[in-house]
């Protein structure tokens, strides 16, 4: 059988084959490259199957392809290197090349046209360079396919492998794919220039610099803008405070004037300020206290802060004094943590003349926690809410009542004849009124609710006093209310001191606001007007 060497791998193949049995390259370049590279191949007809491995298609090949095939077949016959050696100049031949050429002169030249067969024995007389020897050893490795091992299989139209679909599929190497043209009229040829456009080839994009080219004036503007923005973010240094600024002087003057105004009546004791003649709320309180029976029980709530103790103690002094004169028994309680000690202070300082004994004539129940909830609990169930007095005296050891004479058989808040609350906070006042008021709404209940409040609380409390039904039965508001009550019942010792100082203080405060405010507004206006006239006159 005639053999032909594969132009791609050099392995011998039958001359009837169109494709190499080893690398599937086209043995005859004129055979269509589309068949090789997976282009749509029509199913093989009977004629085509006969043509597989034959040369029937040569007749249909174009002329230029035939010429290309003939030139390629003739090319291996040319000696490699002879032509190049002839063209080399004499001085370009190096020593080792000369030696090699001298050695090769005595040896027969190998047939360059004959394909190289790996199984061809190399005579011992032929010296093989070591790099070529290595390459031969690699080719003789067990994985290599030798010609002798390949059985000759008759190709028939029915035999497996006779069609392209049955051929073993071996992936092409990258080198092979790179060398072969796979499109156009030169498809299937090797060693030609690629027809692809250069722009379509993938390559690493060029790196561009991100720096901005700016001019010197632009740089100056940038620096100016950056400086402005940075200055905005930096805190400005505070101006140094003057020791004697206008504001400080004004505050000191106001404080001193007020201090002198309040201190003057206490030093002089002239009692220039008469007590108010009549106050409706105070008169109602006076009437209620006068109606108290002998040994009446009165619940007194101390719900104010120490800062307002002066005002509330002075306002409550004549009222409590009157109640104690009636011989009432007092129960003191507070929903404020400061209240119990304020109550104790009040009893020991202002009412010490009555010789009331703790536990016998009055009892201090201490602090009632829980705000409104605690107050509700106490109003409904005093025995379950508070068990000990502030001094640790157990309150409810006796069955059905208290072992403390002041409490007696108190079971709920309506057992008291009067509830009197001293308060300075709107929320606390509302809690007392709104929790206690509904319990006193029954006409059969004789318990009355009286409030002694700070002057600032009057607008909040007065609606409960003026409203119908009346939820607050008596109201003493501030020093003015206390002074009015003191005028009714006597006992003006404490209030007379406070009343003069208070009247002087409020008068001076009103004058300071009036005169100072007008001075601040009128004087600058007059000055501005005078300056404006001076400018116009010339």
């Amino acid at each position: 059988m005639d053999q032909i060497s594969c132009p791609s791998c050099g392995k011998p193949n039958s001359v009837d084959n169109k494709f190499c049995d080893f690398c599937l390259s086209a043995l005859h370049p004129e055979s269509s490259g589309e068949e090789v590279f997976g282009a749509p191949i029509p199913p093989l007809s009977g004629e085509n199957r006969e043509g597989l491995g034959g040369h029937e298609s040569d007749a249909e090949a174009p002329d230029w392809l035939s010429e290309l095939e003939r030139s390629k077949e003739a090319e291996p016959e040319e000696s490699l290197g002879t032509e190049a050696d002839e063209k080399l100049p004499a001085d370009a031949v190096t020593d080792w090349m000369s030696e090699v050429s001298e050695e090769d002169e005595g040896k027969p030249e190998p047939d360059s046209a004959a394909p190289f067969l790996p199984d061809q024995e190399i005579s011992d007389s032929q010296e093989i360079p070591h790099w070529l020897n290595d390459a031969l050893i690699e080719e003789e490795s067990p994985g290599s396919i030798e010609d002798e091992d390949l059985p000759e299989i008759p190709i028939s139209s029915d035999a497996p492998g006779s069609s392209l679909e049955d051929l073993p599929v071996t992936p092409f190497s990258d080198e092979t794919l790179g060398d072969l043209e796979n499109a156009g009229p030169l498809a299937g040829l090797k060693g030609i220039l690629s027809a692809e456009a250069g722009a379509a080839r993938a390559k690493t994009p060029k790196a561009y610099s991100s720096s901005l080219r700016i001019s010197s004036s632009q740089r100056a503007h940038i620096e100016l803008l950056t400086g402005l923005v940075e200055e905005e973010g930096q805190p400005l240094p505070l101006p140094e405070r003057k020791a004697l600024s206008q504001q400080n002087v004004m505050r000191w003057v106001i404080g001193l004037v007020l201090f002198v105004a309040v201190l003057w009546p206490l030093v002089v004791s002239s009692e220039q300020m008469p007590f108010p003649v009549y106050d409706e709320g105070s008169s109602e309180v006076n009437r209620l206290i006068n109606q108290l029976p002998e040994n009446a029980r009165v619940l007194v709530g101390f719900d104010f802060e120490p800062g307002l103790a002066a005002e509330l103690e002075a306002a409550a002094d004549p009222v409590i004094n009157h109640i104690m004169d009636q011989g009432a028994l007092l129960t003191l309680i507070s929903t404020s943590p400061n209240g119990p000690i304020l109550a104790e202070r009040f009893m020991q300082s202002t009412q010490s003349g009555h010789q009331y004994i703790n536990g016998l004539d009055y009892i201090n129940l201490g602090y009632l926690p829980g705000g409104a909830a605690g107050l509700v609990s106490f109003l409904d169930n005093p025995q379950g809410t508070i068990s000990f007095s502030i001094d640790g005296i157990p309150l409810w050891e006796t069955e059905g009542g208290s072992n403390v004479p002041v409490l007696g058989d108190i079971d709920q808040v309506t057992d008291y004849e009067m509830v009197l609350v001293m308060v300075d906070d709107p929320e606390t006042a509302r809690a007392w009124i709104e929790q206690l008021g509904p319990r006193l709404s029954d006409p059969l209940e004789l318990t009355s609710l009286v409030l002694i409040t700070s002057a600032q609380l009057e607008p909040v409390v007065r609606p409960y006093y003026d409203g119908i039904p009346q939820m607050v039965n008596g109201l003493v508001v501030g020093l003015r209310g206390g002074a009015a009550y003191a005028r009714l019942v006597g006992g003006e010792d404490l209030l007379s001191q406070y009343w003069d100082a208070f009247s002087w203080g409020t008068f001076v405060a009103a004058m300071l606001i009036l005169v100072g405010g007008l001075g601040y507004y009128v004087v600058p206006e007059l000055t501005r007007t005078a300056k404006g006239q001076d400018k116009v006159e010339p």
Partner: protein
Amino acid sequence: MKNPVYTAIAIGVGIVVLLGYFLQIDLLANLRIVLLEWATILVAVALLVGIVNLFVVHFRKSAADQQNRINSIVLIVSMTITLLVAGWFGPTHTYSLWIFNYIQIPIEASLMAILTVMLIYAGIRLLRRKPNLLTIVFIATAVIILLMSGALFGIDIPGLSELRIWIGKVPAVAGARGILLGVSLGIVAAGLRILIGADRPYGGS
């Protein structure tokens, strides 16, 4: 919903206490009283916890090398002395009353006195800027109330005393009633929101 148990407890307790006001059933009334007693005890415990927390926080501040540690040291020393005196002798003892009468009351009264000076100064400066109608009404009301709250040397200016009473009974009370109505409506709304579980200030979001 973080923890439905909290919500269920809050709504249940609220409904029981609320029904105890409207329904004359002994069981509900007794249950309401018990729940209110528990609330009172819990608030007292919370106050104690707050005091302990205050002490711990300022103890740490005083131990740390901070700029204002002297304030924390003063607070801790004052609290310790007061607790020892009131705890050992009792809150109504002379020593306890001395602390209260000569330290706490003067300090709080001094703060009120400073507030008086600052309010007068603010009233004076109020006219320095361009005065409008409201500014003038505000200043005039303050001056009238101040003048007529005292005795004014026994001088009876015709109409001024009546004007002071009118201001105290009509405009001031009208404003206060508006505030009270708003507060009441707010409390009702807040109570309803808690009862239906829309507001959970007790931990469940």
